[in-house]
């Protein structure tokens, strides 16, 4: 976080709304989500499973399976072009070129029948009009960038010959091959073991520094957020409930949901070494995420919120700046705010 953050806004998302129209009703997967990402900045989107983080990412890429899903409102401005207004062929030229994405499962996100080198080269041939040889050479270079040892050799190998971490590196090489403006990482480390996780995160941060890429990091792992993100968006039931710089958010969470999330992280020595007075039991957030096709009228978090009052159950709280640079959507954000020990 000590690096210089370019203040130029690369991606401006405004009022993004993606609904799924199913037999059981309208599922409001992403509801009026706005954010901006600057060059060289890492924006983390956190939340529980099913809170709409992945759908937000797919909406940006315009890869929502349709039907039943549709992005019905909002703008996604990438360097001044609204991605949502582009024709499909124009959008295709953006994907993998200006805006890239890496996925959760490195095991199956690569075509098992093509060599790693070919797959990295393919995006280059597609977007940069490179010849096969040039693309292949560039692919090897990219594999070196992502620190795959013996890149020339690995480029000729098939995905099954690589370990999970190596495959995720190859995926990153693929995503960054065309030097995109925005890189979306959808739970990039969830499927990897802890030591590899750290390496991959380090790699993403380092590449971001070198390439000046704006990174959107989608995760449910707050540890990952604390390590890599500059700014954080907390999502709950398809809506943005809190936004702040990572430091601010961890020190002064304003939304009771974020508070609950922080309280539910086990820390080493939490119970063993603590004296009786310090002893804090691992908290949980009671209840479950509401079904997105049957949201409560007021604040979606109200049924699980310890501070919820009548007002919370009656109206959705506005998303406001509660402290400088710290936004939250809660009627009781002053009550909810408490400094964790």
């Amino acid at each position, binding site marked *: 976080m000590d690096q210089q953050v370019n203040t130029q806004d690369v991606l401006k998302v405004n009022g993004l709304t993606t609904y799924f129209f199913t037999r059981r009703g309208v599922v409001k997967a992403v509801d009026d989500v706005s954010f901006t990402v600057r060059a060289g900045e890492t924006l983390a989107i956190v939340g529980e499973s099913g809170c709409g983080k992945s759908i937000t990412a797919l909406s940006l890429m315009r890869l929502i399976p349709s039907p039943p899903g549709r992005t019905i409102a909002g703008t996604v401005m990438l360097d001044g072009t609204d991605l949502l207004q582009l024709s499909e062929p124009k959008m295709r030229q953006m994907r993998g070129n200006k805006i*890239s994405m890496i996925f959760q499962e490195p095991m*199956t996100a*690569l075509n*098992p029948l093509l060599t790693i080198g070919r797959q990295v080269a393919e995006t280059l041939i597609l977007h940069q009009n490179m010849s096969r040889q040039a693309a292949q050479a560039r692919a090897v270079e990219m594999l070196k960038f992502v620190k795959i040892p013996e890149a020339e050799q690995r480029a000729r190998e098939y995905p099954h010959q690589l370990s999970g971490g190596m495959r995720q590196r190859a995926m990153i090489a693929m995503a960054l091959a065309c030097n995109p403006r925005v890189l979306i990482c959808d739970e990039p480390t969830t499927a990897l073991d802890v030591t590899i996780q750290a390496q991959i995160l380090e790699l993403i941060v380092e590449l971001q520094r070198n390439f000046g890429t704006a990174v959107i990091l989608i995760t449910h792992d707050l540890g990952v957020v604390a390590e890599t993100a500059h700014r954080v968006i907390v999502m709950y039931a398809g809506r943005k409930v809190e936004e702040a710089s990572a430091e601010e958010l961890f020190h002064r969470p304003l939304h009771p949901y974020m508070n609950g999330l922080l309280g539910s992280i086990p820390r080493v020595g939490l119970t063993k070494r603590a004296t009786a007075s310090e002893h804090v039991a691992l908290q949980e957030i009671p209840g479950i995420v509401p079904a997105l096709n049957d949201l409560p009228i007021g604040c979606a978090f109200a049924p699980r919120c310890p501070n919820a009052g009548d007002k919370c159950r009656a109206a959705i709280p506005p998303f406001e700046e509660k402290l400088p640079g710290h936004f939250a959507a809660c009627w009781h954000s002053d009550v909810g705010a408490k400094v964790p020990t």
Partner: protein
Amino acid sequence: MSVTVPLDHNAELRRAGAFAHGFFGQARFLARRYPLGAAGAIILIFFILCGIFAEWVAPMDPLTTNAKYSLAAPSARNWMGADMMGRDEFSRIVHGARISLMVAISATGLGAIFGVSIGLASGYIGGWFDLVFQRVVDVLQSLPLLVMALVITAALGPSLENTIIAIALPLIPSVSRVIRSNTLSLREMPFVEAAQAAGMSEWRIAIRHVLPNTLAPLIVLATAQLGSTILTEASLSFLGLGVPEPHPSWGRMLSESAAEYVRTAPWLVIFPGLAISLIVFGTNLLGDAMRDLLDPRQRS
């Protein structure tokens, strides 16, 4: 197998194919690894060579009749005997290999091309396209392969080309079914989503990423079908609807002789029957090995 001296790394490496370089080295390694597949390949190559070089392999002209040798038993002159018209059975089988293989390979190829196109489009596009084409396929499939082929040759009239079409058409349903079901599951694979995220067009994803992944089952199916097309051709010829006279076809050679001469001249039944069985056996062995080979996870 090399000598197994304990801790002889080179021997182990050789067994794993580390020293297999060049075409022949690779071939030798594969033959050692898949002996049955190699046997199948050898049988098939043997028949293909017979077919291609029939003029040189066959000692006599397969069409020249000679009343003197009518129904001659196998001898030094007629290795596999001679048929009713005194034509050399061995020469006819060699020339028959050309006809049978030509029919089998082109029919399987034709059926596979159409089957793959329909199956891939059906599975990938889905919707009404899938619905319409799969119902057409259902109709095709409701008739047994042989009956279907019979109807078509009866309608088109017997000729080499019509036989090929008649055999190819009933192959389309099974091929398209296999490809479609594979496409349906592959379409949901993360690498397809990743390819979309990389900005590839649906068309390109279907051809370059989905299709190659469906080929392993197709190869197995096609080689198995290769055997059955030879049988179908034989059956059609047996019923007088296949490749017309005077081209020697194994099926017709069998059919002409089976009824009348099976007691008096059994070699006229045994040798064509043997040729058919052997080539079907060979293609099946090869098909099994091909399935393993085409999967990169099974290589190296």
